[in-house]
């Protein structure tokens, strides 16, 4: 008798749990309809620019955009594997390779911002007096001043690696350290260690009030940071939303969008005719 009431209890409990469970489950598993996966860089997401542009695009087109902020290396890999429909990235050399290998199509310039060389205010390497950013890098190496690299295959990391050859410097782990983290974390580490680092201007500006490091070099043509939009080639991978990708890419280079980019602090439009 005692046992049988307890079994009744158990049934009730199971029934209630099942109901609660299914309510929860169905409330979250609303199927994705007309979605576009945009693989882009963390810096683009961090800047807040996409928070302005994407709601406008979604309203105009009826698409839902899933923005995945990863390192440029990962974004490019997602394009190769067909895990994204469209890429907004800033590693020109890797981008050219992606297009040449046939994984990306219709690469178009969207905008640019710029990189700056950040370092201690007293500038122990004398990078401020260098004639070029390559020479500034050289002076850092010669003086053995600490340099923190992102080391994460991001667009910023790839830009940094493309500058070192101009300095003809051999990197040594005595003064060249890799953080393996995002721009914000790397700036904080560089600040703690009073080291030099290459940063994108937007992230530096948002961290400026928290760190003592200053800009030691800016404005070189080499330091420009161009963003391109690339549609993923549907012939290489199945399931790519190619119409959606084209719609989003067209939206980015449209003159109304370019105007919005011009109004956004830190970015300059590149697709205006």
């Amino acid at each position, binding site marked *: 008798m*005692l*046992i049988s009431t*307890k*079994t009744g*209890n*158990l049934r009730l409990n199971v029934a209630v*749990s099942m109901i*609660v*469970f299914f309510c*929860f*489950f169905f*409330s*979250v*598993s609303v*199927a*994705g309809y007309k979605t576009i*996966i945009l693989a882009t860089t*963390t810096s683009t*997401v*961090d800047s*807040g620019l996409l*928070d302005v542009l994407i709601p406008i695009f979604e309203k105009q087109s009826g698409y*839902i955009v*899933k*923005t*995945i*902020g990863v390192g440029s290396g990962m974004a490019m890999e997602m394009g190769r*594997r*067909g*895990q994204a429909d469209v890429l907004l990235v800033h590693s020109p050399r890797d981008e050219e390779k992606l297009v040449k290998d046939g994984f990306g199509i219709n690469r178009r310039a969207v905008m640019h911002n710029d990189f700056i060389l950040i370092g201690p205010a007293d500038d122990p390497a004398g990078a401020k007096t260098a004639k070029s950013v390559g020479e500034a890098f050289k002076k850092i190496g010669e003086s053995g001043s600490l340099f923190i690299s992102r080391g994460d295959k991001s667009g910023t990391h790839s830009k940094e690696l493309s500058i070192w050859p101009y300095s003809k410097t051999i990197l040594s782990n005595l003064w060249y350290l890799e953080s393996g983290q*995002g*721009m*914000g*974390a790397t700036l904080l580490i560089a600040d703690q260690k009073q080291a030099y680092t290459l940063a994108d201007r937007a*992230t530096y500006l*948002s*961290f400026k009030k*928290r760190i003592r490091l200053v800009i030691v070099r800016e404005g070189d043509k080499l330091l420009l940071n161009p963003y391109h939009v690339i549609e993923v080639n549907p012939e290489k*991978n*199945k*399931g790519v939303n190619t119409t959606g990708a084209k719609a989003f890419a067209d939206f980015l280079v449209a003159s109304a969008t370019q105007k919005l980019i011009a109004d956004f602090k830190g970015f300059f439009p590149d697709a205006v005719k």
Partner: protein
Amino acid sequence: MLPELLNILLLTLRVSGTALLISILIGIGLGVFVALRDFPARKLVIGVINTGMGLPPVVVGLLVLLFLWRGGPLGFLELIYTPTAMIIAQVILGTPIIAGLTLATIQSVPQKYKWQAQALGAQGWQMAWLLIRETRLSLLAAIMAGFGGIISEVGAVMMVGGNIKGQTRVMTTAIVLESQRGEIELAVLLGLFLLALSFSVNLGLTIIQQRTKRA
């Protein structure tokens, strides 16, 4: 800002709440079953459960990502970058914690009690239910441990959810994003909210736990 914060808070509750409920159902069921039944490879299963209690979230995230990707074994379900994908990852993390602690709890019930119940005619389901009722204090602690693992997790939900604004951004991933953006105050604020959320859920569970103790 405020509606967005509310959105993040609700999504966190929805994702982690669902994951917790599923983890409880599977975890307690599995723990009780393994504790009471003898079957081949039982020790191996226990070893797997115990290892699962310390699964690195990023590894789970990576595996779920590979399964749910387009062209992956379960890619046709189109679950990648949805809250459902995040629930799946959290269930994989939460279930072994609850199962492992349930197993240890049920096994620590004195054999005498089990014999007594058997003598009164308890079998199978009835026995399981009796033991669950008897050990509910420890089992609630197991549930709290599972909830702690799920709600605080960031690596896996970041990977399989993508931290998409308004769709898959939860408290932990929002904290990572805001600290990357240099919005330290906002990140700290979100952290406090997360702690408050975790505290209230645990307080609720504790009240249930302590009430049953007195009764």
